[in-house]
Structures are given as structure tokens and as C-alpha cells.
């Protein structure tokens, strides 16, 4: 058991997996000597050398496309996209190629590839260093999408992602890198993909969240607990495949469901969760499935007053809970 920051858990897990399996390589912009712009790969180049820690040119489509090829020919690449905002040039390679290789080849070719990317706002990153991009990829069959919220889950899920035989997108909220700490068991454990976790049991309202919002949901639950509202928080951890059972079990129990996500509201990931809950828990609902999400503007604006306006925070979630509880 060790107390680690979120980013330490990621860095150490990369090192552990690289020691365990020499097929694991890390590639991306500035991941080598510099150790990544957030230092998530710091020390790997010194330990594993040029062949396994590759400072690539500034070309995201190449990073993903070449990783697909390397995965096909026996490696397990872990590609870093420097910011989730810069994954878009690689969209075609991810969506048309990585996601479809197994299906289109009738299971003769798989792509064991992990793509890591820092996402999220609240760090003065403005339109292009704050994006939540999960909705673009959770829609795509053939991809798995993971968003851990604790150092423990970061380790367990990153292990699962790297060992998985299919492409996994692994999104890390950059505001959590150094602000979130937690215990990480020493041993060889994994957190399986596709399983959510109830992080706070409760009876009146279910709050569904992931990443930074999973923390804010807990804070909001604490705030409203003082007011006598009992909240159950579900941390999804894997967005695709979604653990419907855990979600529906909770909502069927509480009868009320609020989904919190930081991305733009319209067409965001929470819409799918809301749609599933609305359809499959209909008979149990005592109030409308509610979403607390980012406003529909083309990016988080920079100036701090605008950024605060944009960001979902514990108070906004708490307000949503209060309203739903009173319904």
C-alpha cells in the first residue's frame, strides 16, 4: 500500500507494465527526455531507452496510425496524445481504423492499443486545453473508453487497458494529476474494464459521474447530506462498455437519477446514460432524469470569470440534487 498522486499512479503503472511485458512501448510528443508535458512518462526513457519510449514528431494521426500497425505486428503500444484536444487529427485513424479492424477482418486482426490523453477544464486551459472528448468515442463500437478517478483505479484500469486485446481510450482529468491522492495496493491487481463502482451509498437520489465529476459528486453528496438528503454516487470508471447493471440497480432503488458531466451538455455522454435510465428504469422513476453538464459553447473560455461560469462544480451538482430530491 502506498499513498500516491493520480499521476504517480499512472507513471508507476506504465513502468510496471513495461517491466512485465517487453512488448509494451510508449510513444508520443515529448514523452521521452522531457517525460511528457505533465511528466506522466517521466523516467521511462531513462529506464527503457529509445526503442521503447519514442519521442514522436508532432503528428497525432501518425502516432495512432503507426501504433495500430505496431499493435498488429506484436507490440502493445501506449500512445500519449498530449492533450485530448489534439486527438482530433487522429480521429480517422481511431474511428475508421483502430475501432473497426477486428470486426472488418472477421476477428483475424486485433489492435491491442491504449491511447492516453489528459482531458478536462478548470486549469486555465481555455478552448483547446480543456476539452472533454469522451462523447466522440463512446459512440464508437469497437472502442473501449475509460475515465478513472482515483490513483487506485488509475492503476487497476490502466493495467486492464494495456493488457486488453482491443483499443482502449484512457482519459485522465488533468486537474486531478496532482490534486488527487489515494492509497494504491502494492500487488498485482487489476480493475476490470466495464465495471462501475458505488462510491457513496444512499437512498434518495443516484448521482452518476466519472473522472473529476466523480469527486465533485461526492462533495455534493456530503453537502446535501447535512440537509438530510441521502445520495448514492456511482463512479462509472468505464464509459464504454457501460456497466448498466450497477447504474440501473441504483436508480431502481433511489427512484431518482442525476448525471453530472463536464462536457457540453447537448449530445454529451450523459445523454446516453439518461436515455438508458429513462427507458429501462421508467417504472421506478419518481422524478425526471436530470443532467448537470457544461453549457453549449464551443469550449471552456479562458478568463477565470468565464471559466468559472463554464465549469460544473460541487455546488452546481448539489443544486441539481436538491431540486431533484424535492421533486
Amino acid at each position, binding site marked *: 500500500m502506498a499513498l500516491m498522486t493520480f499521476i504517480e499512479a499512472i507513471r508507476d503503472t506504465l513502468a510496471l507494465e513495461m517491466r512485465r511485458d517487453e512488448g509494451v512501448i510508449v510513444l508520443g510528443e515529448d514523452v521521452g527526455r522531457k517525460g511528457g508535458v505533465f511528466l506522466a512518462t517521466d523516467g521511462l526513457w531513462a529506464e527503457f531507452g529509445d526503442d521503447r519510449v519514442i519521442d514522436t514528431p508532432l503528428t497525432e494521426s501518425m502516432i495512432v496510425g503507426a501504433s*495500430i500497425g505496431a499493435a498488429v*505486428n506484436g507490440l502493445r503500444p501506449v500512445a500519449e496524445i498530449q492533450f485530448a484536444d489534439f486527438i482530433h487529427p487522429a480521429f480517422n485513424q481511431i474511428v475508421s481504423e483502430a475501432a473497426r479492424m477486428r470486426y472488418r477482418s472477421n476477428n483475424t486482426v486485433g489492435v491491442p492499443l491504449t491511447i492516453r490523453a489528459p482531458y478536462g477544464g478548470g486549469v486555465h486551459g481555455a478552448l483547446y486545453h480543456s476539452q472533454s472528448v469522451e462523447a466522440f468515442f463512446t459512440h464508437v463500437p469497437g472502442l473501449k473508453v475509460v475515465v478513472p478517478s482515483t490513483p487506485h483505479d488509475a492503476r487497476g484500469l490502466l493495467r486492464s487497458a494495456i493488457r486488453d486485446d482491443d483499443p482502449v481510450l484512457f482519459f485522465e482529468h488533468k486537474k486531478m494529476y496532482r490534486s488527487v491522492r489515494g492509497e494504491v495496493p502494492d500487488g498485482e491487481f487489476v480493475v476490470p474494464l466495464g465495471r462501475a463502482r458505488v462510491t457513496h451509498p444512499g437512498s434518495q437520489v443516484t448521482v452518476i459521474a466519472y473522472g473529476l465529476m466523480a469527486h465533485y459528486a461526492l462533495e455534493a453528496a456530503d453537502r446535501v447530506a447535512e440537509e438530510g438528503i441521502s445520495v448514492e454516487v456511482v463512479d462509472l470508471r468505464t464509459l464504454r462498455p457501460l456497466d448498466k447493471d450497477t447504474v440501473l440497480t441504483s436508480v431502481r432503488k433511489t427512484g431518482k437519477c442525476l448525471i453530472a458531466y463536464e462536457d457540453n451538455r447537448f449530445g454529451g455522454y450523459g445523454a446516453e446514460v439518461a436515455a438508458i435510465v429513462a427507458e429501462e428504469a421508467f417504472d421506478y422513476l419518481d422524478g425526471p432524469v436530470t443532467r448537470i453538464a457544461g453549457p453549449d459553447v464551443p469550449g471552456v473560455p479562458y478568463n477565470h470569470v468565464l471559466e468559472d461560469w463554464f465549469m460544473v462544480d460541487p455546488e452546481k451538482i448539489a443544486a441539481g440534487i436538491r431540486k431533484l430530491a424535492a421533486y
Partner: protein
Amino acid sequence: MTATDPTKAKAPAAGLGADLGLSDEDLLGMYRMVALARAVDERMWILNRAGRIPFVISGQGHEGAQVGVTWAFQRGHDWIAPFYRSIAMCMTFGMTARDIMLAQYAKASDPSSGGRQMPGHYGDRRHNLLSVSSPVATQILHAVGIALAAKIRGTGQVALTAMGEGSSNQGDVHEALNFAAIHRLPFIFLVENNGYAISVPAAMEVSVPDVAMRAAGYGIPGVVVDGGDVLACYAAARTAVERARAGDGPTLIEAKVIRLTGHSSDDQQTKYRSDEELAASKGRDALPHFRDQLRAAGVLTEAIEAALTAEIVAIVDDATEFAEAEPDPDPSTAMRWVYAEDWPAETPPPWGFGDGSHG
């Protein structure tokens, strides 16, 4: 009947292939492959016009370059990321006429995709032929990645990809050549320049007369070869493969080929190509040229030619009948293989095994 194995020493051949280390058997094998690919391809069109198969995209006019280049690679060892015109390339690397026909009919036993993809989207894992998708040029990065893994793992493999000159303008090509050149990867880029991207003539899609002129901008060799000359294509590829295996990095080979058919069975090329131009391009076809070469060199005797023609007709007939008779895929399999199903744990993965929504 097989691509050469450059790791094996060869007895020097006399005659036409001597300079290139090709025996008469090699030459006949190459010729057979060009002729067979053409025959399979022509059959596809007949089947299409007869309403048996809804769509054809063809390699006619590209076969010479494909066979010549592919012959320099080692089957079962090297890798190829082909494109939709790569019938002759795929066949040279191990796919059979049946395999190609199964793709046309999209049958369950189609090795490319089990009937999931359109015809033309070949691939065969058994022969290191990577599955083709439709968005053009993406495959260049896959081949570069395969070469990267070969270098890191020290396998000695070389990776080849091919595409048209129109596709070579995609951004992925720039990113791929830059990366492959920086790391001196064992990678070869074949551009099959047939002068058109569907209806758009080369002058409107490529800003230079030869795509090969772009190689210098990456610090790699760029060679232009006549795609009508099978042996010239082989020679260029052999040099490139040697360079690649020696650790000297990638090569761009541009083969000037012809497109003997419309872009696909959906295209009416007379709308944008004149009769004269079409007639002139036929004069550059590798098949008759190679036939004449081999005849003149005494390699292709009348007896051999007659036997070959008969063999090819039989192969194509067999492939057609076989593919036509094979069953369609079972729709109950359509949900399968979205994800790997050989899950290592004892319990099935949370997303199930092809039995419903994977969302």
C-alpha cells in the same frame, strides 16, 4: 509460384532474368500471376454485368507493377498493407482465386472479412496481408507501424504498402514518410500512378509530374518505374527491399500504370476520358508486354502458354463456382467480434460475447 525468398541464395539464372537473379521458373511464375489476376478480374466484371455480384473494383492495368514489386518480398514473413486494386499483389502473397472470389460474393468463408466488407477490401492474416479499409491512405501508417515493430522486435521483416497517386496527397502520407525516414524503418511505399483519382486527372490532384519527386523531401530514395515492365518493377523493389533489410530505411517506388476499367462498376469513365486516351493507355499494358518478352526469350513456349491458359480458365471457373456455392454469413454472427472474445478471465467480460448491445 511463390514470391522469392531473398534470404536464400539462388543459382544464377541464364537469360532474361539473369541480371535480376530470376530463374525461368520465377519468370513463368510471375507471368502466371499477372495473367491469373487479370483473368480473375475479368471474371468479376462478367459476374457484375450478369447481376451476380453488385460491385466490382478492379486491378486491371496494375497487375504488372503489383506482381513485379511483390515478388521481391518474402511471403509468410514480410507484411503488406494493400489497397482496393491489390488483387495481383494479394494473390502473389498467397491469396487464391477462391479467396478473391469469396470476397466478391461476400460469403461467410471469405478470408478477407467473412462477407462483412465490400469486395475490394482484401486482407488475409495467414499471409500477413492487412485488412483493407475504404478511407484511402490510412494503411500507410499501419505499414509504417508494422515496420517499427519489426525494427524494435528485430524480426527482419519489411513492410510494404500501396495506393494510388490521388491517395498519396492525403496528410497521413506526409506523416508516415517523415516518421519512417527519421527512424530508417524497413518500409516501402508503392504508388500505383494510373493518372486518375476517379475522374480527376493527375495534374489536378498532384502538383508535380511524379509522386516520386516527393521522396527527396523526406531524405529517402524515390524511383519511377514503368508499371508495364514487370521486371523493372521487380528490380526496383529488390533494391528497396535490400536497403530496408540492411537498415538503410524506406524507399518510395512510383509505378506508372494504367487503369483499364472505369474507377469501379459504378463509374462511367467515358464521361471524362477520351477514346484516344483510353486506346493509348492500353498500349502500356504489362500483360501483353510481358508475354512478348517471355516469348521472345523462349521462356514462354507455345506449349507452356496453352497449358497455362487452360489452367487459368480452370482456376477461375473453380473459384467462381466454389464462391457462388458457399453459404452467406449467418446474421446471428453479426454482433460478434466487435471486441475480442477470448477473454482471459474465468468469467465472461462485462460486455458479453456478441449477444446484444455492446454499448
